[in-house]
């Protein structure tokens, strides 16, 4: 059953990937506002990669907190495994969102890193979850590791909400930011962009689910293997 779902997900991801790429490359026109501001309207298409990566990473961090709460309530190891897998995959998505954002910064503003409030808050998210991975790796006792990780996942989600959705929308921060999210929020991009970004979001979300499923299956098997080894040692 696990494999069948895995195959269906892989096919869906592959199809969506090809469809989004084809539409973005051949069908979506260059964005007028981006052409006026940055001299190349085609760089707006980076949105099809950058925005889904950032949003799916946020979804991953929130999911990790929910799984963390489920662990704290039930003390069942599979919730801890799902929480950890969501954070690891979410962290990778956040890294890629930062890299693609940095590339956009280079194309639009001439600098790889300009300390724009959006870049800075994303860096803070990355640091928050890098610390999670370090803390988790440093604890040896399995139950303590799971409890601390779950509590951290919940606090991390609160920080994420703050960094993704509160700080960038403060009036003073918005005034200081050159990030083009305002154009998107105002509906400045036409329906070509709105359609393709949604399809791309679905592709990245399905890939996220596939990665978390695979990672948590590995963690589950390793746990079972360790339990069997412990039982054999005791016997």
């Amino acid at each position, binding site marked *: *059953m*696990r*494999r069948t779902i895995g195959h269906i997900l892989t096919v869906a991801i592959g199809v969506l*990937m090809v469809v989004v*790429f084809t539409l*973005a*490359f051949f069908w979506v026109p*260059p964005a007028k506002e981006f052409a006026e501001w940055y001299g*190349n*309207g*085609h*760089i707006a*298409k*980076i949105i*099809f*990669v*950058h925005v889904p*990566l950032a949003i799916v990473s946020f979804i991953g961090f929130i999911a990790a907190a929910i799984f963390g709460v489920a662990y704290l309530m039930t003390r069942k190891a599979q919730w801890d495994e799902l929480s950890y897998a969501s954070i690891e995959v979410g962290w*990778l998505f956040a890294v*890629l969102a930062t*890299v*693609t954002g940095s*590339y*956009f910064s280079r*194309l639009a503003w001439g600098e790889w890193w300009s300390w724009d409030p959006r870049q800075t808050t994303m860096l803070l998210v990355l640091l928050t979850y890098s610390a999670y991975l370090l803390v988790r790796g440093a604890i040896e006792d399995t139950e303590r590791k799971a409890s601390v990780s779950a509590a951290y996942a919940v606090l991390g989600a609160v920080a994420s909400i703050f960094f993704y959705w509160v700080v960038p929308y403060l009036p003073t921060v918005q005034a200081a930011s050159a990030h083009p999210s305002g154009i998107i929020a105002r509906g400045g991009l036409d329906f070509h962009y709105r359609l393709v970004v949604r399809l791309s979001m679905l592709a990245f979300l399905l*890939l996220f689910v*596939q*990665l978390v499923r*695979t*990672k948590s*299956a*590995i963690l*589950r*098997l*390793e746990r*079972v*293997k360790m339990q069997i080894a412990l039982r054999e040692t005791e016997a």
Partner: protein
Amino acid sequence: MADSLPFFLTWLVTWIALMAYLWRLEAKLKGIERDEGRGSGDEKVER
């Protein structure tokens, strides 16, 4: 076409990175399953 190069590069690098990570995880999972000499992970947990 040359104007679309930034999007093409971004798309390509991102998907290569994510697919490489997925293949690495899949290989690790298959390796563990092979070591155990059993079926899927779900079956093992049920045991």
